[in-house]
């Protein structure tokens, strides 16, 4: 078999197509060539370039867990040219994927620790990968807590999985929607993520926090985590900068001397605080 060119994507067949919210979708993708699927592996935190042939490429994290092999999943919001075109694809259609790229969440280093996930809106996908990864290796970790918020009930992604996690005895799930975003049936919290987190006040003892969300949420949540006793090197996040190549060549995703694609996307806030404000 000829060596695959660096920019040549795997051909992937859409095996499942889930509408998460009116403008967010999840695709399950299977490798068209079985042998490529067999040799493919990745780790939690990595991302890839997904493409519609003729429209271009877009960057999304791999939202499924590396413990589930044979397929990958991505969850994306309809934004511009590529994502709009992707959203109109159906089960059975072929799209491109190249990856996995980027660094990882160091799950191996977290054995024996508790994990706290704090996230909002469409930032759950990168953490969903870690959550399932940790749940599939449940004995490796102590407490697992997930605090997840969205503007309205409609905007929560992975609704079925949230229900499933809520029922499990080994995950503490707190969901919340912004005031005014609730429905009559809503049983979760009402309030912004930082407020809800403060109220829940999870322990920071032997705990790693993973924080992904819109900039404003991150800004308001960091002081709360600090108050709870998390030092900046115990809080992990992912950065998103516009990307093209995904491998440190095209030159656009840098924050100071680091390329988010190659040296990230996973950073601790101790690292982020050393970076110039270019993200």
């Amino acid at each position, binding site marked *: 078999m000829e060596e695959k060119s660096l920019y040549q*994507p795997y*051909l992937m067949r859409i095996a499942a197509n889930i509408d998460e919210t009116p403008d967010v979708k999840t695709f399950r993708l299977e490798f068209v060539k079985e042998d490529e699927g067999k040799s493919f592996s990745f780790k939690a935190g990595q991302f890839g370039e997904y493409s519609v042939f*003729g429209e271009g490429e877009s960057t999304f994290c791999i939202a499924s867990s590396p413990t589930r092999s044979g397929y990958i999943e991505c969850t994306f919001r309809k934004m511009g040219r590529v*994502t709009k075109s992707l959203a109109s694809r159906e089960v059975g259609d072929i799209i491109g994927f190249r990856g996995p790229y980027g660094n990882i969440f160091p799950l191996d280093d977290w054995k024996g620790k508790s994990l706290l996930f704090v996230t909002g809106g469409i930032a759950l996908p990168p953490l969903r990968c870690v959550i399932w990864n940790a749940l599939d290796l449940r004995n490796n970790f102590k407490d697992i807590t997930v605090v997840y918020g969205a503007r309205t009930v409609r905007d929560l992604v992975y609704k079925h999985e949230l229900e499933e996690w809520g029922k499990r005895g080994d995950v503490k799930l707190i969901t919340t929607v912004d005031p005014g975003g609730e429905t009559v049936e809503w049983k979760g919290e009402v309030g912004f993520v930082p407020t809800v987190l403060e109220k829940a006040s999870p322990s920071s003892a032997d705990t790693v926090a993973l924080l992904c969300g819109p900039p404003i949420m991150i800004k308001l949540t960091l002081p709360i985590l600090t108050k709870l006793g998390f030092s900046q090197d115990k809080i992990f996040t992912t950065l998103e900068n*516009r990307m093209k190549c995904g491998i*440190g060549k*095209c*030159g656009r995703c840098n924050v100071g*001397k680091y390329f988010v694609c190659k040296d990230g996307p996973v950073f601790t806030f101790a690292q982020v605080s050393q970076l110039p404000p270019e993200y």
Partner: protein
Amino acid sequence: MADKKIIRKSSLGELFKKIRSDGKRILAPVDRGGKILFEYVDSPGSIAPDYIQTTLSAKDTLLPRCEEMLRFRTEQKSVYLEESLNRPEPTLIFGVRPCDARSIAVLNAVYLINYTDDIYRQKIDTTTIVGVSCAKCDEYCFCTSVGGSPGDTAGSDMLLTQMDNDIYLAEILTDKGKAIAALAPELFAEGGDVDKNKHCADVPVRFDVKDLSKRLPGVFEDPVWIAQSLRCIGCGTCSYVCPACTCFDIQDETDGNRGVRLRCWDSCGFAQFTLHTSGHNPREVQSQRWRQRIMHKFSYQPDQLDVIGCVGCGRCSRTCPVDMNILQHITDILEVH
């Protein structure tokens, strides 16, 4: 140690013939209405007789302005990847100035370190560089400030230095250079044990590049960038003429059910370069983009890839429509305390 020989200017015609029959295309500087551009030639007669520097570098042989990354065909639900037509042809580039030859180290660092870019690799593997030392320079040249010199051998497979009207010193530097000399050994005579420096231009050292690299992180927030870039119109010319700029964009183009994915030169001077689809832009204003250009070349690349992303060719300053001058700006930056 380089093998040093001499070759007569009048023998170049014979050498070019041998190179052509060896199956290589020859690119050489040709005068097009005062612009000195690399074009395909068969004989040295077409080469521009006198010039300080080529208007554009030969970079686009190794990294074309727009090149095919892959080729595909769609049929209903299926997609087929087709064989790419982007296959390099063996090429010899004649008359590359030492600064431009030096820039290949920057391209190599970006494209071959970490992930090997096979599209670039094939091009560099099939390209031979015959440099020609500079006998003249202008006020924009500053190769000696960034590690080069008018007779620098770095990046060339063979370097020619004109000793007098009819004699070139030929330094045979690499296996590719040896292969060229081996095509016509009779043209390369003994007598190369000469001092070439007196035939090379005298380019004064204008700044200490190590000092610059060391200081740049400390001036990141300095207003100097705003003062410098107020007149920059973000046209990207400086990147397009730069032999050491490597950034690109990826775009698909289709014709019916067939298409190609292309990579095209891009520039950190464009607002679009870093613009997120959400509308957020980490480098929102031109001063941040100008800073990126300088930081990338003189701080990030030395730190991360051990190369200086500038070879001092001066093209950006020569061609900028609003007379931004990189040398002047570096001098200003070094004066920030």
